Each structure stands twice: as structure tokens, then as C-alpha cells.
């Protein structure tokens, strides 16, 4: 009886998009790893097949379970991140895996779902008002706890994803200036790297003066505007210092390549150049499945993981790339739509987190692959090779789909 209602109430649109993306992902992994002997695509097939029992388990668990045990799940996730410092396995300089036999598990992939649950749980408590500064601090603390544990692994890519929680919190009432501050910070940072600091300060001054003049006389506050200007100036001036002294050389390189300040196609610019060549040579309809010369030649490093989109671009061309982007966007909008129609705050916030996390991965990954974002290790959901990633995203999505299917019962 219960199973039947799940079947009836499950959002099949999401399930179908999910399945299509996973299958497309596997086909591209198959193509990109065909020339290597690692057996990558066989392993990924096992990972994919294992998601089927995983999904059944998630759907079978009572819908209330996640809300009830959100804190415990979050606690376990944090512990697993802490445990990395003691038992973690270091791969390519990053200590973010547990090794069990020949399989490795990356707890940060599951921590995103746990954090989402914890945040949803916190915000669903009655009487939470995010206008209250204390509440803001508490909510942000939930987000920052895992970030603090992930950053030193070091895994800046995973940490970056958590920034999307700001947008979730904004949806739930966080003051707008958090978001504006976030965007302004990013904008100023990039502008300062591209232009000279003095020009950025000049532009900031012009904008502030313009806003000041345009605003109503009652709203004018010369002190606040001046403080804003001073803060921006200090930030801009510190960007160069931070860039030169706090950032590591490889971080600087990645920005310099992106901004076109350095051209080094054989060395630090190799990844981006090769991935642009692979995608760019795809043309309108691509070279065809298994016909990508760049893919076959293994020119793009990490092609089956973070650079899997290059295979899509080369072998399926603009048409294929467009289709993949459309599928993702369709999934995100569908999840947001579902979230907005949830009856409980808990499942609405969680749904928002799901859409936000998937979207951030999607955007950062593809933007990096096509050379408009610095190189950073973020997988493409459902596409990139890796069991932890696939399961993490599957759990993330299907917990929400379970909640969504359950909403009828909640009345």
C-alpha cells in the first residue's frame, strides 16, 4: 500500500532526468576511458547499478526519519570529516578519502546532504527569524562547521559549494545585504585582478556617489556611504596583498591563466587549453560517439572526472552540450518548483538546498572546463566518474524526492 503511494507520488520528471543524465554520463566515461586500461567505465557501471538498491532504501525509509535524525546525521558527517585527519588517505595531496580495500569513500560528498538536512531542521524550528542576528550567526555556523573541516584537507572546490547556502538562507529571510556583499566581494576581487586597484577604487567611488545622489534625501547617509567607500578601498587594496602573499602559486596561476595574464599552453595552462580544444573541435554536432580524437588521445587530463564535459563537447558538439545543459536546468527548476510547493519548511529548505548544491556544482564545473572559471576540483553531478560523488548526489536528490512523495501523508 505504502509502496504504491510512493510509486504514484514520486516525481517521475526528476527521476527520468536523473536517469538520463546518469546514463549519458556513463557513455561519456566509457568513451573517455576506453583507451586507458584502468577499467574505469566498468567500475562506474557498478557504482551506477549500486544506486538502484540505494534509491530503494532511501525511498523505503520513513519520510519523518530524515527530519527526526537530521542532527544525528549531521553529527556523524562532521565526525567523518574530523576522522579524515586521523585515518584519511591522501590522494594527489588531498586528504579527503577513506580507503576500504580498493574502494575509497569521500565523506565530503555526503556531508553536503547532511548539512542540508541540518540547516533545514534548524530553520524548520518554529519561531526562527533570520532577521535576528543571533539566528543568522547560528544558521551560518551550521554551514561553516563542515567548511572549516573541508578547507584544510585541502578541498577548496567542495568548500566553495557551501557558499550556495547563503542563497538558501536568503530565500528563508536572511537580509539581502549578505547576498549583495557576497556578489560585490566577488566582483571587486575579479575587477582588482583585471584592472589596477586605483581604477577599481575610482569606479567604486563613482558608484557610491551616484547611489547617494539618486537615493531619496531622507535615505541619504553620508557617514554610511563614507564607511562603505573606506571598506571597499581597504578590501581592494588588500586583494593584491592576499593574491600575492596568501594565495599559493598554483592558485595565482589558475587566475592568471583565466584572466589571460599568463599564456603557458604546455605547463600551467595545459588543462584549460586542451579542454577548450576538445570542446571547440566538436562543432555543431560533434565528432560522434567514440570518435573524439582528443578524447581518444587522452589530451585532456582528468577527463573522466572533472573534465567529463569535454567529451560531451567533442563527441556530441554544440547540440549535445545544449541538451545536457537543458536537462540540468530542467532538473534544477523542477526541484525548486517542487520545493516551493512543500507543505513543511523542513522539506522546502531541504529542496532548495538540493537545487542550490547541484546547480553550484554544475556551473562551477562547466565554467571551469570551458575556461571562464579558475581550475578547481568540482565534479559534474551524475556525470563525473566516482562512486562517492554519484551516491552523494543520488542520496541528496532522492531524500528530497521521498519527502516530496510523502507530502500527501503529512496531512
Amino acid at each position, binding site marked *: 500500500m505504502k509502496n504504491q503511494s510512493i510509486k504514484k507520488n514520486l516525481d517521475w520528471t526528476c527521476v527520468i532526468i536523473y536517469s538520463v543524465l546518469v546514463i549519458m554520463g556513463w557513455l561519456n566515461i566509457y568513451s573517455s576511458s576506453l583507451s586507458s586500461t584502468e577499467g574505469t567505465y566498468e567500475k562506474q557501471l557498478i557504482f551506477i547499478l549500486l544506486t538502484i538498491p540505494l534509491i530503494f532504501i532511501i525511498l523505503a525509509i520513513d519520510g519523518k526519519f530524515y527530519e527526526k535524525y537530521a542532527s544525528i546525521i549531521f553529527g556523524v558527517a562532521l565526525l567523518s570529516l574530523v576522522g579524515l585527519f586521523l585515518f584519511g588517505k591522501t590522494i594527489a595531496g588531498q586528504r579527503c578519502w577513506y580507503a576500504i580495500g580498493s574502494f575509497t569513500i569521500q565523506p565530503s560528498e555526503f556531508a553536503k546532504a547532511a548539512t542540508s538536512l541540518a540547516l533545514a531542521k534548524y530553520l524548520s524550528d518554529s519561531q526562527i527569524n533570520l532577521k535576528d542576528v543571533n539566528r543568522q550567526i547560528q544558521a551560518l555556523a551550521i554551514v561553516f562547521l563542515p567548511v572549516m573541516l573541508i578547507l584544510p584537507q585541502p578541498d577548496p572546490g567542495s568548500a566553495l559549494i557551501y557558499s550556495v547556502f547563503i542563497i538558501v538562507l536568503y530565500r528563508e529571510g536572511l537580509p539581502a545585504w549578505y547576498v549583495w556583499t557576497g556578489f560585490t566581494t566577488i566582483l571587486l576581487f575579479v575587477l582588482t585582478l583585471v584592472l589596477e586597484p586605483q581604477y577599481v577604487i575610482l569606479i567604486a567611488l563613482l558608484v557610491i556617489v551616484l547611489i547617494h545622489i539618486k537615493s531619496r534625501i531622507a535615505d541619504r547617509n553620508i557617514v554610511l556611504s563614507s564607511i562603505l567607500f573606506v571598506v571597499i578601498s581597504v578590501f581592494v587594496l588588500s586583494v593584491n596583498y592576499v593574491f600575492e602573499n596568501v594565495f599559493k602559486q598554483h592558485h595565482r596561476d589558475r587566475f592568471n591563466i583565466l584572466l589571460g595574464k599568463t599564456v603557458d599552453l604546455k605547463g600551467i595552462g595545459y588543462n584549460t587549453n586542451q579542454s577548450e580544444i576538445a570542446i*571547440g573541435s566538436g562543432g555543431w554536432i560533434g565528432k560522434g560517439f567514440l570518435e573524439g580524437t582528443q578524447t*581518444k588521445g*587522452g589530451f585532456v587530463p582528468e577527463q573522466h572526472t572533472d573534465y567529463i564535459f569535454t567529451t560531451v563537447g567533442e563527441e556530441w558538439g*554544440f547540440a549535445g552540450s545544449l541538451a545536457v545543459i537543458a536537462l540540468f536546468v530542467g532538473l534544477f527548476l523542477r526541484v525548486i518548483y517542487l520545493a516551493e510547493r512543500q507543505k513543511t519548511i523542513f522539506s522546502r529548505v531541504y529542496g532548495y538546498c538540493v537545487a542550490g548544491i547541484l546547480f553550484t556544482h554544475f556551473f562551477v564545473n*562547466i*565554467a571551469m572546463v570551458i575556461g571562464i572559471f579558475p581550475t578547481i576540483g568540482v565534479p559534474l553531478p551524475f556525470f563525473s566518474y566516482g562512486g562517492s560523488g554519484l551516491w552523494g548526489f543520488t542520496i541528496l536528490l532522492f531524500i528530497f524526492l521521498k519527502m516530496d512523495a510523502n507530502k500527501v501523508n503529512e496531512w
Partner: protein
Amino acid sequence: MRKLLLPSLIIVAALLLVIRIFYLQVINDTFKLKSENNAIKIKYDYPERGYIYDRYGKLLVANQASYDIMVIPRELKNIDTLEFCQLLKITKEDFIKKIAKAKVYSPRLPSVFLPQLNKSEFAAFQEKIRKFEGFYFQKRSLRDYEVDFGANIFGFITQVNDKLIAKNPYYNSGDLIGKQGVEESYESVLRGIKGVKYFQKDKYNREIGSYKDGKYDTIAVQGEDINLTLDAELQKYGEQLMINKRGGIVAIEPRTGEILALVTAPSYDPSILVGRQRSTNYTLLYRDSIAKPLYDRGLLAEYPPGSPFKILTGLIGLQEGVVDEQTTFMCHHGFSYARGRFMKCHGFGPHNLHNGIYNSCNTYFANVYMRTINKYAKPAYAVDVWSKHVKSFGLGDFMGYDLPTGKRGNIPDSKTYKKIYPNGGWRSTTIVSNSIGQGEVLMTPIQLANMMATVANEGYYYTPHIIKKIKGTNIDPKFTEKHQTTIDKKFFKPMISGLFDVYNLGTARGLGVPGIDICGKTGTAENFAKINGKRVKLEDHSIFVAFAPKDNPKIAIAILVENGGYGNAIAGPIASLMIEKYLRKKITRTDLEKKILERSLRDRYAKLGGMKDANAIETSPKKDTVKSKVIETAPPVANLTIEN
């Protein structure tokens, strides 16, 4: 409002990605090419070049295997350097230097360690190559010359230059191409068509399989063998006779236009332009601007032909009807043809066509020529009529033979004189030098030989050619097309009888070969050079034309020996020897042969040019260095007049 932030962010971000991807994939089209450079390797399969045979099927040019020793530095393992160096006869320092150089190029990719080893150099190494990990060999095909003559006819093989690569899409950098000689003119026949294979490369530049399962691959087409019209024995003999002389010999079979021999001297052993010493040797040959061993004198040496041209003057006079066989002119060691103008002649007494020819009487032919020009009221018209007759012998233009070099020569017509005398006023007396092959007339040895072939044929010729047979295809039909001259057949008989008596009564007395009826004509070309700013008269060029036998001619020949003196001094004897060699395959006039073989003009060339190194010709051992080395002289030919 707050609900809209995330969806709008998603849509804006997705649009941004799509625009960027659209730019990469659709707008910017440089990536396709970059991708091909990156990932596709093209390998060519070069077919073996066709062999070259002589007219009797004797093999002249074949191929030999040559071996490049290749190295992949990264794969080197436990090399016994001492043994390795001994096998390849190199020093240890050499070894270290070469490996270092290969490493600089790429540790991962193959480099040529030692190029172009021949079979014997390679044999010992081949047995042990498995011991030397990291080394392997690459077989190439090089020319293998079975004879040490005929370099000017064969040409040579060289790497194609950038200009040609740009012009002809067939060739790629590093491809080989035939240059000069038949290697050039029959390049596309000899070379075949190379096969192409496309391979997929990986990021280390290694091949990982064929591209698109060989969809675009093509199979190599073997080069065709060719037979030349050349008589190898005659060619060899010609080159021997020309040792220590400079000049050219062209022998043609009149009946077919087939070139039997094409000698230029000095020449070189064709095998010196093969293998490791190629570029050094080529530079030596190329830089020798005095002896010019790469300059085919048989085809390119353009001179006023002198007396042999009188044959045409006579024939045209007969054809135009201004003289007949009986017409006589008095000669007083020359004659005054205009006020204050006197043409010298060694003859004396009455001359008709017959003794005019065998005595080579200037007076007779000058008069015939003046009558020819004066036949018409306008000399411009007359000279055009005359010019047309001469040109019908294939003169004054490229002959259309199948060798890549040539000169037009020059046969003047009214336009020529309009240029020289823009105000007019020129008459038969102005241009009378043409009658005896001077003036504006220029001819090359092959044109002289063709003229003799035409006379032997009594009025027609076939375009001279060097190709006899191409396996599988026919030779160019233009070589089997008969060219009729404007002279009636009947006028050749008296001319031939005069040429025959050149040997009995005339300028070539004592040069005859018993039992062979030869018709010939001597010629002598004066020449001058500027030495230290002064115009100095050099020793005359010796010229001789002939054909034999008189009835049913089998060979027509022209000989030019630079600074050889009178026509009958060196060129004449060479003609006799060549004719006998060809017709009898042996020499009975051994006295003449000995004289010519021993005759060296080296001292003369040295003296004339004021050169420093006079003993360079023909002294070096075969195959090791250039056979005829540099001789420094001033350019010998500056201005020429003919007197005979």
C-alpha cells in the same frame, strides 16, 4: 521576490555557459585545426622509385636499401657502448654527443642517430641490434647507380624545397623529388604515388591506432620502370673521350629522334650524390661556376654554330630557286660584298654547291644568302621567308624534348632587325654573317644534332627524346609525330653528297673510318673572355656535325669542345670514333682513339683562365669525392665569332 533569486541565477548562468560554448564550438573555428595537429599523425608509405634502363634493357639506375639508425633516448637500457661504437665505427664521444642531441629533441620521440648506412655498414650491426634496447632502424630506399656515367641524363634525387611544397600539394616537407635529367622530367612516373595512413595520437605523441579505421588511408602505387633511348656503351665511350675536355656530344637516331648519347664534360659520378656525402658533394658541384659540372653543355651551350649552318644556307638557296647545283661563285680568299666590306675565306677559285660545302667556302654561301634575301623587294619579307625555312628544322625555339633544361637558340627574323635597326636601312649585306652561322644565329649542340638528323632523313625529323618505353603506358605521342621541313626532299641529295666529300676532299680529310660512309661538317667558334678587364681572344671552340652511314643513316651527331681549336682538331675525331663505336661496337681507328683519349686541354683551360688549381679534373677516386672539382677561371665565353 526572494523566491526568484535562485531560478534567475540558474537561467543567467546557463545562458552564460551556452554562449561561451557556442563561441568555442561554432564561432571560433581554430580549434578544429588545433585538434587535428594535436591528435592526428599522418604517415606516408613511400613506394620504391622505378628503375631506369638503357635502350637495350641494360640496368642503369636501381635502388638500394639504406638504413637510418634511430634512437628513443628514454628507452635506452644497459647499452654496451664499446661494442656499439665498434659495430658502427664511431667514437665514444660521438656516441655521447648524438645521444645528448637526441635527448634535447625529445626523450620520448625517435631521432635519427646515424643516417643512411649502406648494406655492408649495416650488416654487422643488424645482427646485434636486439642487444641495444632503445635503438631500432628505419629502412629507406636510395638510388643505386649501376654505372658511373650519365649523371646529366639521370639527374638526382633531393629533398623537395618549400617553394614546390607550396605549389604542389602532393609533396610534404622531407619528401624526395627528382631534380634535373629524367628523374625530373619523369618524376611522376618514376616516383609512383605515396600511400597515406592516418593515425590517432595520444598526448605523448604515440600512435594508439588507426584514425577512423583507415577510412581516409590510401595505398601506395609503385613507381614505373622506364627505358631510355640511351645506348649505355656509346654514352660511356663519349664521356671517356671527353675526359680532360669541356663540351658536349649529342647523338640522335635520325629515323626516330631517339637520343643515343648526351654527353657533357666535365661530369661526375652520379653515385656521389647519394648517401651521407650528398650535400657536401652537391655543394662542390654547384659552386664550381667555371667547369660547371651541373651544366649540361649538350642542351644548354648556346653558340653561333659557324660553318655547319652553311648546310641550311645552301638548302634554302636551292629551295628558293636562287641557285642550282651548277651555280658558281668566284672566291679570291674571300670577297667584297659591299663597299669597304670584305669577308675572308680560305678558298680560292670557282665554287659551286658541292665544293662550296666540302671546302666550306664563305664566299659561296654569302652569295647564296644574299641572293635569297635579294629575291624579294623587301628584305624584311625575305628574311622572314628565310627564317621560316630555318625554323622548320626545329631551330630558334625549345625543341620540346623530354629533359628539363634547354635553350631556345636564336634564329633572327624581320622583328629582330627592326629592333636592332629601328630606322630601317638594313639590307642583305648588313646581315650576311647569318649565311655562315654567325651574326644573330645561335644554336645548341642538340639543335645541331637534330639539324643533321633532319638532313640525314632528307627533310623531316622527330622531336628528340630520351624516353623509349614506360612500363604500362605509351610515351608521349608528340615524339612519334613527323615534322616535315619546308625544303623539298630532292634538294638534300646534292647537299649530302657535298657533306660526304668533306671526308674525302674537304676539311675532314683523314678523319674517315674505313668501311663507313660518313657525312659531316666542321665548325669553329671564336670566343673571347674578359680577363682583368681586357678582352682576350681565347682558343676557338671546336665544333663538328655528322651522320652515318650516308645511305640509311643510323646516327646523327653534334660535338662541341670548348677551346678545342679547329673543328677537325678534336671534335671531328670524336665524331668519327663515336660513329664507329655505335655502328660497329668496336674501334678500328685506334690511332685516333689513343690521340683523343690522351688529349688533355687542362693546361689550356688553366692558362686561359689564369686559374690556380689546374689538376683538379678527373683525379679524385670514384665515389668518394667529386670527380671533377673546382677550377677557377674567368668565365670563358663572352663574345663569339666564327671563322672557317
